[in-house]
């Protein structure tokens, strides 16, 4: 097989302790370029902590993270973002008073000129950049879900939950990331809504570029449909790895979810 898979993200012996609690316990794992990796595990098993460590919100106690061979272990959140890694949050973190456009445009922050003089006094040039950005956000909304494009200048607070989740995903996609971290996109939504949103994501992925996804999810049907490979965590440790069928039949996973008989 000539398709030797290229690793895009790798974690080695990653450990994260909060006082006496070990949220990640020497976790080693990798993600291949272009794949959709499922990250599973019971509540409190360290999935979100893993995202927070990668995105620079937490600093790992020990171990390291590399992205395309570059060490990101001690990188700040901004540095991680500039490496084209974006994420969504389990609980919606949109700025409700701001418009759909504002919330998505900030996701494109690394391509916006935030110079003081440019923004305050060179309004003509700013207008050009602004028009370009409106165009881009609009394009993304049209690709993602055309219904949202009409609401581009409406405050996010006026949108339904499912649309807010869409906006959050658009915010993560607008900068054309290489790695997208989705933290439980089904939280707070019905099964059908989640499927709808996932289809939107896959659709954008096929149209723009085949970015890599790590998906944290409890909804097993979603994992089965979306992922090529899964990793199961429990108490911060990797307890299983493989395709959906492999992990579902793994005895350790069954014990972790259902308890010892």
């Amino acid at each position: 097989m000539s398709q030797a898979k290229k690793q895009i993200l790798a974690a080695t012996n990653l450990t994260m302790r909060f006082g006496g609690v070990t949220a990640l316990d020497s976790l080693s794992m990798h993600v291949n370029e272009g794949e959709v990796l499922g990250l599973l595990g019971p509540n409190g098993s360290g999935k979100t902590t893993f995202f927070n460590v990668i995105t620079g919100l937490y600093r790992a106690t020990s171990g390291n993270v590399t992205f395309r061979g570059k060490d990101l272990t001690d990188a700040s959140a901004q540095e991680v973002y500039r490496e084209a890694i974006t994420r969504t949050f389990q609980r919606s973190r949109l700025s409700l008073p701001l418009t759909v456009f504002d919330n998505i445009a900030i996701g494109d922050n690394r391509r916006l000129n935030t110079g003081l003089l440019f923004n305050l006094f060179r309004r003509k040039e700013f207008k050009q950049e602004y028009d370009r950005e409106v165009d881009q956000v609009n394009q993304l909304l049209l690709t993602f879900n055309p219904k949202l494009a009409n609401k581009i200048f409406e405050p996010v607070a006026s949108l339904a939950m499912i649309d807010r989740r869409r906006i959050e995903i658009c915010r993560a996609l607008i900068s054309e990331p290489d790695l997208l971290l989705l933290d439980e996109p089904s939280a707070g939504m019905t099964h059908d809504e989640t499927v709808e949103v996932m289809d939107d994501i896959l659709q954008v992925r096929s149209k723009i570029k085949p970015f890599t996804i790590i998906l944290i999810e409890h909804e097993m049907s979603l994992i089965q449909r979306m992922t090529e490979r899964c990793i199961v965590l429990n108490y911060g440790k990797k307890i299983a790895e493989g395709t959906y069928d492999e992990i579902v039949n793994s005895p350790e996973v069954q014990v972790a979810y259902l308890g010892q008989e």
Partner: protein
Amino acid sequence: MKLLISTFILGLLYSILLLGSESQAEVGGLVILAFIVSLLGKKMGLMDRLASAVQEFPKFPAYATVAGVLITMVVFHNSHFALLMLATVLIYSIVCLGLNIQFGYVGIVNFAGAAFFGIGSYTAAILATHTAVPHLVILLLAACVSALIGSILIYPVLRTRGHYAALVTIAFGILFRNFLEVNDTLGGPQGMKIPPLNLFGWNLSNGIEILGHEISFYIPYLLVALILLILSFTITRNLERSWIGLSMDMVRTDEIAASTYGVNVAHWKIVAFTLGNLIAGMAGALYGMMTAYVAPNNFTFADSLILVSIVILGGIGNPWGIIPAAAIVVILPEKLQFIQEYRFLLYAIVVILILLFRPDGLLPRRIREYFPGNKGGDPK
């Protein structure tokens, strides 16, 4: 447009009457009138209609304000007290624009507004007394000194959030006043005199005569204040309608989401805090030169509270709200002198009533439009 112009004329007439009123009956009547009109206006949905009219002519409020100030100035051309109040309203508006950048955009409540205002005044006092620096440059230098001293606070403000950052600024405000009172070189509790503003060799505090009419020496200060107000207003406005305003809003609403999307939270807090103090210091220098005298008692914590209350009363984050709010806060207590000690009681009641009926302030912040009346690459 008709609605806008008639509102403008009525508003102008009202403020001229209020500024000129002297007897108790007049002031009392005017306050009650304002109350009745606002109740009627609420019933008729006047605010919404006005808002949509402004939407059509986004430049109207700016021209109306400048015209209003100029007309009022001409009407009261020889009445010192009315002009002093008008100039004070403008200067307070400038300070509050600075506080608005801190409070409204990036979310730092600065309870040391009066302290930074005072730093500006004292800097002006020292520079104007002891050096030959041109006075316009002093305005700039005072602004810089205020921002520079403010940078002492940057570290503690960055390390704390919300109420805790507010506490840091409260502590600074109190420290500043105590420092002034015990410091003899700065005049101690008696304060210092400031020489009047001198523009291009023209001493602004000398009375002027134009066409046989004697003009109050406050008028030149008023004009300088107006120019500075327009300047700081433009800066605040453009700031909001740019990626910087967007970044600052993100910092205020969700620091974690902001930093995940590459927004440098600390950077924008520093920019907003410094810019706000810069504007406050500049206004302070002008105020000091106008009143010719600075003393620690002008820059107490209570004064800082008044500044913050202007921002809240006007509608946090909306620079337009600040001007009417400053007018209410400055003029009302002065005009209510006839009820003696009770005036602050009545004033407090008015403020509470306003916030009861308009909890988001007089003119709540609207959704950001980067280029009003022109949506740019609008798909429709």
